[in-house]
Structure formats: structure tokens, C-alpha cells
């Protein structure tokens, strides 16, 4: 049997120009009196996609989700679901369901009644409701807890009830608002994989809002990075990490070193940059800028090497002083202070147990990286 990961790798409808988006935001703006929560935003989400909206609080991601659910109306623009314009459709008539950040379990109803709530609203026959509730309880492995009230459940169990309740109506799209936010770290990691399996097995479209980049990277097919009501980049986790589209995205995801400089020349896929301190860098990445323009070279710490001597094969190298060392067990993070005072961060895997002649504080050291390690970001 193929692993989930291998199946997912071949899933890329966004790369197919013939594929029709399932959810489409077209120039959507949402204003709350004088505050612009969502600013002229367009976005496509495809069927069966696990899509994450990632950003700091106040970036507009939750507002976007609530507009899709129908709790907020866009000030302008439109939202299409499976070709249907959702304008004016109240939340209770939309074929989407939401899992709330607080779970919003009805405290006066049992687990069973919570799951059956949506089905009863649709006046589904009693026998069918019972059957569906049974299926849902089985799905989230809560059969023994059917008669309990929410306050008689642990945090993880409540999260499962909320999930079962929002899935019971078999919505076209499931919206998840910080679905794992209230769980502790260990439970969160387990649940991430469960959610992914569930999404795949049911063949549903998931739109998840989160501020946790690790969560988004693990679960999502694609991530939209949001800031100040705008989408800065929509791409797969790997693309976002390895080829961020802007300094904001580069800085937002993981940690990164950014060198400011000007473009010297670009030829045959090789870009030459002279940074502010006068050092020259050769980078195997397109610059999308003209010679003389201000550009930034961004390199992840794990793509940098720290050593006493300058490695002879190194295409780019900088000399400095070891300023700080953080030993994390599996790896060590070095902060190296360049002669002009800038700090560069490099992380090295501790592949050998013995650290003979290890670098220590105030040692002189070289920081080096290959030409294909970084990306060039223009204004």
C-alpha cells in the first residue's frame, strides 16, 4: 500500500490549468467600520485539497474563514463555492461546516445529541440519524462516550466530538479554526496525522486557519501566508520554505539570514551580489531585478556551514567570531558575529558523537554556503 505522503505528492490540481477551483475568493474586501480585515483578496482552493491559512493574529485569516462560513458578509467582491455565488446565503443554508476554535460544544446536550444536532435541523429520519451518529462516534473512536455531556470529557475528547459534529452532515467543505490550538503539544502532534488521514479517507476539502507554522507545514497541501488582510504567497510547504516570495514570508517561516546588497550581474542562471559590507556572493538563483538594484539574499541556517578553516570548495564564505552557541542535542546553532557587527546564524547537525576540536566562544570561524543555498529577493 502506498503511503499517504506518496499519494499526496502526486496531488497538484493547482498546477493543472484545466482544473476548476472549488472555492474561489474574487477581490474580496471586508471592512469593520474603519478597519480593513481583508483587503482585495483573491484565492482559489481545489476540491479535496487540505488548505491552510497561516498568519499572525489579526492578519484576516479568521475573517476569511468566517466569510466562507457565512458569519460575515464581504464588503465587496464575491465568494464562489462549486460555481455558486454565496452572497446572501445565510450560514444555515451553506454546504460547509465549521469546527470552532473553542469547539462550541452545546454544554446542555450529550455527545450524541451534539453530533445529531445538524442532522435534526435537516429533519433526517430518526433511524438514519442514529445510524449516522453511530458512524461518526466510531470514526472518532468515542463510542463509549455517547451519553456523556461535554464537561465530562477531556480536552482531546471534546476536540473529537467537535470534529464528529461538523463532519456529521457530510459538508462539501470543512472549515477548521485553530483546530489543535487548545491541545497540548503531544496530543497536537498525534492529532495532526489523524486529521490528515481523515481528510484523505473522506475525500473532503479542508480549509484550516492556524498561526502555528509547523502545523500548517505538516498538514496542508498548500499554505496561504497572510498579513494585513492580504495573501503574500500561496504555495506548497516546501516551496514556501525553500523559495519564499518575499522577505516577509522568508522571515515568517522558520529562521533565516538575510543579506542586503546590490545586484552586480546575472548570467546563465548565476547571480552575483555585492552586499553592504563589500563581500561578493555567487548564487544559483534568478534575481528578477536589474543590475544595481537593491536585492536581498536569504539563506536558511541549516544550509550554512561553520568551520575553523575556509573550506576550499566553498563558493561563498564569510569570516567572523563565534558569538553564541546553542547546543540542542541533535544539532548546534552558532551565532557568528561578522567584523561589521552583523550576526549570522548557522545550524549544524551533530552527526558525530565526539566533538573534538569543537568551536567555542570567541573562536575565529568561517561561515560558508554553496551557490544553490539561497534565494534572491527583490523589492
Amino acid at each position, binding site marked *: 500500500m502506498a503511503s499517504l505522503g506518496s499519494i499526496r505528492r502526486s496531488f497538484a490540481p493547482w498546477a493543472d490549468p484545466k482544473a476548476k477551483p472549488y472555492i474561489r475568493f474574487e477581490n474580496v474586501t471586508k471592512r*469593520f467600520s474603519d478597519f480593513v480585515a481583508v483587503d482585495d483578496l483573491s484565492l482559489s482552493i481545489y476540491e479535496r485539497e487540505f488548505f491552510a491559512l497561516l498568519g499572525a493574529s489579526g492578519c484576516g485569516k479568521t475573517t476569511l474563514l*468566517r466569510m466562507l462560513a457565512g*458569519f*460575515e458578509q464581504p464588503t465587496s467582491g464575491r465568494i464562489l463555492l462549486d460555481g455558486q455565488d454565496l452572497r446572501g446565503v445565510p450560514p444555515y443554508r451553506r454546504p460547509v461546516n465549521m469546527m470552532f476554535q473553542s469547539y462550541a460544544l452545546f454544554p446542555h446536550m450529550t455527545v450524541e445529541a451534539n453530533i445529531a444536532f445538524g442532522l435534526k435541523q435537516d429533519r433526517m429520519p430518526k433511524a438514519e440519524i442514529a445510524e449516522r451518529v453511530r458512524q461518526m462516534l466510531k470514526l472518532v473512536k468515542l463510542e463509549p462516550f455517547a451519553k456523556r455531556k461535554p464537561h465530562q470529557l477531556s480536552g482531546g475528547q471534546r476536540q473529537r466530538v467537535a470534529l464528529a459534529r461538523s463532519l456529521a452532515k457530510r459538508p462539501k467543505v470543512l472549515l477548521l479554526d485553530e483546530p489543535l490550538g487548545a491541545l497540548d503539544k503531544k496530543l497536537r502532534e498525534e492529532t495532526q496525522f489523524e486529521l490528515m488521514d481523515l481528510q484523505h479517507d473522506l475525500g473532503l476539502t479542508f480549509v484550516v486557519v492556524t498561526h502555528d507554522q509547523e502545523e500548517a507545514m505538516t498538514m496542508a497541501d498548500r499554505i496561504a501566508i497572510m498579513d494585513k488582510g492580504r495573501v503574500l504567497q500561496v504555495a506548497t510547504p516546501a516551496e514556501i520554505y525553500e523559495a519564499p516570495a518575499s522577505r516577509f514570508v522568508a522571515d515568517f517561516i522558520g529562521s533565516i539570514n538575510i543579506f542586503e546588497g546590490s545586484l552586480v550581474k546575472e548570467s546563465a542562471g548565476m547571480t552575483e551580489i555585492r552586499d553592504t559590507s563589500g563581500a561578493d556572493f555567487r548564487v544559483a538563483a534568478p534575481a528578477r531585478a536589474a543590475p544595481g538594484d537593491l536585492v536581498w539574499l536569504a539563506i536558511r541556517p541549516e544550509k550554512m556551514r561553520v568551520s575553523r578553516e575556509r573550506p576550499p570548495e566553498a563558493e561563498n564564505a564569510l569570516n567572523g567570531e563565534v558569538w553564541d552557541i546553542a547546543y540542542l542535542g541533535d544539532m548546534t546553532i552558532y551565532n557568528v558575529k561578522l567584523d561589521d557587527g552583523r550576526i549570522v546564524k548557522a545550524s549544524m547537525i551533530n552527526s558525530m558523537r565526539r566533538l573534538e576540536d569543537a568551536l567555542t566562544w570567541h573562536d575565529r570561524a568561517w561561515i560558508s554556503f554553496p551557490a544553490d543555498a539561497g534565494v534572491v529577493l527583490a523589492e
Partner: protein
Amino acid sequence: MRKLVSGLGGRAVIAVPYLWLFIFFLVPFFIVLKISLSQVTIAIPPYIPVFNWQDGLAGFFQKLGALSLDNYLWLADDPLYVNAYLSSLRIAAVSTLLTLLVGYPLAYGMARAPLAVRPILLMMVILPFWTSFLIRVYAWIGILKPEGLLNQFLMFLGIIDQPLVIANTTTAVYIGIVYSYLPFMVLPLYATLEKMDYSLIEAAEDLGCTPLAAFWKITFPLSLAGVLAGCMLVFIPAVGEFVIPDLLGGSGTLMIGKTLWNEFFANRDWPVSSAVAIVLLLILVLPIVYFQRAQARAQERAG
């Protein structure tokens, strides 16, 4: 997120209580105002109406000339009314202060009591509030009378040999107001004192304050919101109080609520009692608006 009114249900939820209060609370004030501008007569109802609903707009303007401020001039002329207003304000102010003096230590004691006992203490303060106001005032008659229980007790102890005259004096009214309105003072005070972080006091004492200084410099200023809310809740209704001065104050105590009642029931002078009500309302409108805005602010904060 704030929502604008949408849907039929939303509109009904606003419209029904709105309309009810409009008809039964707001409109009556305009009727009182209208009648306060009419002439008294011996009839049923005992006044000459200035406006007639049937007259329409033309009649309205025609009769505008018939408005008379006589009733107000009458109020201003007769020292009885002026004194009644002043003495109501004075009695209400003094009793509010007394209620604060009695209520603050009680609320403080409650807020500093062990956590487990607090709900019980709170209920003990609320419980008398649920029993009839009239009964609570009535209970004091038997206590304060010359041959009443208080005098019996004090004479039994030998503190006095002649009965004190408390019943039918202003003192009795003070006691009655403090007693009846105490829960209104204690509850907001308790709410603010209970929320207060006790480590503030510890910090103040750590920095060299004596407990008393810490109270005046920290606890009291931080409880001012509760003090003001409590004082408003006591002062405003106390100004217009009727039952307490009537049952405990006797004929010697002049309060405007009683004056209005007598004007209405004994003299059957509806226009003058309406004028009395309007002036009372004007006196109270500032504190009421203040109280309402404080309520709204507190609600904003909670929400």
C-alpha cells in the same frame, strides 16, 4: 464581532420591548408634562386638558396658548414644596453617606472572607432584598416606637431611663433608608472589592505603608467605581422615597415623595402633583444619566 440588525427575528426582538417601554414608560412622562401645564378643576379626571387627541395639529397649536406655568409658579411660591425638595435631597444625601459607612465595612469583610464562605455571605445580603420592602420598613415601627423593643432593651440595660423619641423623626427615616437600601450599596462594593488583587495591598505594605495607609491609598481609590455605583443606587430612589418617610418619619418629616402622594391622593390635585413629579425628574435626571452611562461603560468592559 458586532452585528447589524438582520432578519425578522432580530427586528422583533428589538421592536417589541422597545415599543412596550415607549408606550408605558416614555409616553407617560409626556402626559405628566402635559397635565402639569393644565388647570385644576373639580371633575373626573380632575383637570382641564390642554390638548385633546381629537383636535389634531390645528387644535394643538391653538391650545398652545392655553398652556400655563401656574402650577410651577405655585411650586416656587409655596415654601412647602421648596423645603420638601431641599429636605428630600438632604435626607437622601445623609442616608446615602450613612449607608456607605455601614455598607463598606460589611462589603470589605465579605470580600476578605475565606473563599468558601463568600457565596453564603453574598446570599445573606441578597436574601433580605427579596423580602418585601414594606415589611422591612414595618418591622422598624415596632422597634423604634417609644414603648418599642429598642427602648425596652436600652431601659432594661439601664442606659436610659426615659424612652428615646426616635419614631416619627428624621432619625427614624435615616435608619429606615440605611436598612432598606443596604444591599444596593453592599453588592456593587463587594463586586469591586472582591475583584481587587490583594497583592496590591501586600505590595503597598512591603513598600512601607501601614495597613490603614494602604487602605486609604490603594483599596479605597480602587473601589471608587463601586462606591459611586452604590451611592447612585441608594441616592436616586431615596430622594423620591415615599414608604419610609410615611411610615417612620411621621408628620415632622418633609419629603417630596410624600408631598406628591398627598397632593395626589388627599388633595386630588393632579396638575400640581404632575408638576411636582416633573421637577423631581429634572432634579434627578443628571444622576440618572450618569448612572446609566456608568452602567453602559461597565457593560462594555464586561463584553
